[in-house]
């Protein structure tokens, strides 16, 4: 472990900017939460900013992108396909433990299983990750319920933990070590590990008083969801409040569903676009010929929370599908983010138990 004085953060981002496109929390004019986005100016990245309103996953899973283009001339019968080169070195600076956990879930899902998703792999190569331990929770947080914070455990090149005027600079890879050397950082003393542990414990202790927006006692509900023992009336109650906007999927660090659409250009070619999709939408499962196996909105809500919380789905991530970032609760027009859904289900379980 090393010591990075807080006022040296611009030096860190500047050093990374030499080799990587920088992504990190950026404050916006006009107020509101920071956004995790590409920063042209290294100094714009604010390690002291609150959790970003959007998830960092856009850096590896953009909202909309072209993955290949083709041109087919029906006269000459000539077809040419060109795959887009999506590889760019990217540094994600200031990513929180919940979001990093989400990234690792995306890794296991996209890069593991039957096939490797080559598009994701291209985005994910050449990446440098600087994680930022949350020394205090934000009102929306519940990572302690989903075992995904407040300190990142793996997957980072550097993990920072703020203590006083400094950050404890923990390396997780050879690349992280190289950066410490490049910045000429002092080594931390022998009590650094204990100091970090103490800081994390204090952060956890603050959840009760400060992370007050969402109380999601998830584990009790996971079993119920896995076994499918939740009445349809609960899903209908939740479904009535769904505005079918898709935002929960867009802001979720572990959501990975996408749509592919071939879009014709004015100059006669075609772009194959890959973009965020959501199982919230009615058209998501609709087949040509009109059969739609998951049409009612309550079935779609059921599916979403099955995906996030059931044990069988956690196989694909090796952990629950929810990382406790709280974003779905903030962005939902119907106020049915995951924490509230868990509450409704627990209420149902309690009622059923009382019978």
């Amino acid at each position, binding site marked *: 472990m090393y010591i990075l004085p807080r006022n040296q953060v611009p030096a860190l981002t500047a050093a990374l900017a030499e080799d990587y496109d920088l992504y990190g929390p950026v404050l*916006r*004019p*006009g*107020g*509101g*939460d920071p*956004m995790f*986005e*590409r920063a*042209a100016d290294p100094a714009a990245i604010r390690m002291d900013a609150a959790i970003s*309103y*959007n998830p960092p996953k*856009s850096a590896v899973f*953009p*909202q*909309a*992108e072209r993955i290949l283009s083709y041109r087919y001339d029906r006269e000459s019968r000539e077809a040419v396909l060109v795959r887009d080169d999506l590889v760019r070195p990217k540094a994600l600076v200031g990513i929180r433990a919940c979001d990093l956990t989400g990234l690792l879930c995306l890794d296991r899902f996209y890069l593991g299983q039957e096939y490797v998703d080559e598009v994701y792999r291209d985005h994910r190569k050449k990446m440098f990750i600087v994680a930022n331990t949350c020394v205090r929770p934000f009102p929306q947080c519940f990572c302690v319920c989903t075992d995904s914070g407040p300190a990142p455990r793996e997957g980072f090149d550097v993990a920072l933990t703020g203590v006083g005027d400094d950050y404890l600079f923990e390396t997780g890879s050879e690349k992280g070590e190289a950066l410490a050397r490049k910045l000429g950082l002092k080594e931390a003393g022998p009590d650094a590990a204990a100091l970090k542990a103490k800081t994390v414990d204090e952060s956890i202790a603050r959840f009760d008083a400060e992370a007050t927006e969402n109380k999601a006692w998830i584990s009790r509900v996971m079993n119920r969801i896995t076994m499918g023992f939740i009445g349809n009336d609960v899903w209908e109650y939740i479904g*009535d*409040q769904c*505005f*079918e*906007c*898709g*935002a929960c999927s*867009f802001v979720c660090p572990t959501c990975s569903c996408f*749509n592919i*659409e071939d*879009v*014709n*250009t*004015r100059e006669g070619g075609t772009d194959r*676009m890959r*973009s965020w*999709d959501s199982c919230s*939408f*009615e*058209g998501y499962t*609709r087949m040509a010929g*009109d059969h*739609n196996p998951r049409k009612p909105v309550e079935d779609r809500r059921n599916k979403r929370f099955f995906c996030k919380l059931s044990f069988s789905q956690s196989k694909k991530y090796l952990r629950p599908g929810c990382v406790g970032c709280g974003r779905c609760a*903030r*962005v*939902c*027009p*119907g*106020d049915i983010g995951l924490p509230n859904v868990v509450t409704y289900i627990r209420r149902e379980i309690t009622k059923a138990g009382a019978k």
Partner: protein
Amino acid sequence: MSTHTGVCNFCGTGCGHLLEVGDGAVRGVFASPGHPVSRGRLCVRGWHIHELLATEDRIVAPQLPRACGRLDAVSYEEAIGAAAERLSRYSGDEIAFLASPRASNEDNYLMAKLARTVFRSPNIGLASDQGHADAADVLLEGAGIPAMLGALTEIRKAGLILVVGADIAKLNPIVGSEIHYAARGGAGLVTLSPRSTQIAKLSGTHLWTRPGTLRLALAAVAKVLVEHGWQDESFLRDRTEGFADFARYLSGLDLETLTSAAGLAPAEIEDLALRLSRAPSAMAFFSSGISGLDRASVALLFDLFLAAGKIGREGSGVNPITGICNIVGSYDVGASNLFLPGPRRAEGPAAGRTPRQLLAVSPSPLKALVVADRDEEIVRHADKIKGLECVVYVGAYDNPFVDFAHIVLPAASSAEADGTYTNAERRIQLNRRKVDPPAGVLPAWRIYADIAARLGASWAYTSSESVMGEIASAVPSYAGVTYAKLEKGHGLQWPCDARHADGTVRLDAGDAGRKLRFVAAGSDFPVPAASADFPFLLMAGKATYFWHRNNIMKKTQIPKREYNALLLLYPRGFVEIAPADAKTLGVRDRAPVNVVAAGGSMRVAVRISGDVKPGTVYVPYFIEDMVPGFLNAAGTSIDEDQDSTIPVRIEKV
């Protein structure tokens, strides 16, 4: 890639968003967490505006007709010259202008100025705006503000919220969301509607009226309120005038008749009246257009809330909701034939006629039409428009209307030009240019200025900001507006003038400078009646994805897919029928039926739904056959897009 603050350009909520721009094009969108109205939310449309803004399905070159009626690309100068020269042959009722409620204030202001001062024609209109004009009229007369009296940012402060008729969770989802959050926070939520909409399902109380009787229900509530003495006496005394006449008017109404004709129980009416009286604050929401309220109904709603003391206070107000992003602004800057810039009512010769009204005259005097970004009119009047001598189309997106045009002029999209848009709560918001338009394409306001220049007018606008400078002097409620002020926060709500330098969040009764006035509602209480020949009452309405022919939705991917999920299931549209009625008729879901009214018929598919009560049926206003073959034949009130209830019969095919 960089992100830029902006305003969504779809419905009248005016949500804030962040557009991602890369390589000269819009690449993505995110909800803006800091926006005071949308607070970090968007609906499915707003979440996919980047698909529309990046579409290549654009009009990119000016076009003029050549041989065989085909249009050829020409230079901008040539097209402008041709437009000026050809249009100058017409005057008075020979020429009309169809403005777009989606265009910016700057665009619409100059289109109106072009019409009125260069062509000396008052015939500029938005077409489907009669409903909103009525609401604006009533609120102007009663309160001095021809738009929403409350504020969207105060919804969570309302003690009681009444939603009248509008399927608001689908029309303006984020407004629906605010209302839902308010209800979850303890506000009372009551929906008055002839159909079970999503907001009705989320309401603690749904007063399920018979179709076409909202006016009766509102009158009944007002009568009960006053009869019990539940009006706000001190408020009435200090802030209003005309209550005595209103009370007298109510005493002449028969409560039992009103209540039973509306299909409600006396206890329901009394409960609402009491709750409205007792609530510390209350808001009413309704929409205009085909599922909206007519003038008398708005007047009754306004009078009811005035009597209850729920106007001009925090968390209170009577709030018309607009379905398209700049309906309010279009009125403000004079793009409606019914209003001059202000807006103030246009009277006498200054009150022009809309293209629809001119085309409805037989024989029609109309020979030339200038259209901005529309697709609806061709559904209604395709043949008549084909017969016009000169049609000039101005727009950004490719559109079937182009096939009817003689001159086509491409315009910049909302992401390609600076422009202001005024949402339902009078919030004027600035959208800055974020990407370049296709080569040579100009903002619409420049096109109008260039046409004016060719015809001898010397307008010296250098930018859209300079157009706003003139709007600020022509429109009293915009007097204090500057781009700098708009950019400091999230726009400004008008009136923004000497007395309200930072705008006006909501009407404040103490600050109004006048007494609030009861508005006469009339004693006409028509009750649509079914008959043996026409045993069903048909209601028409709108939904999330459907705007007329949905031209812009078709340029997207996900919203278009969602639209198709419904449309392809019912390719010729659908009529919602209650399960019991479907059984009696012997029809299953998706079976084709003829919906027959006295004047016309249309063929659609059955959609069995518990959202309608037996004896009532519902059609969404997007079916092709519906407008020409059915609504047009059914009468003028439909033509003006009023709340429409038509007695029909359903025939198995």
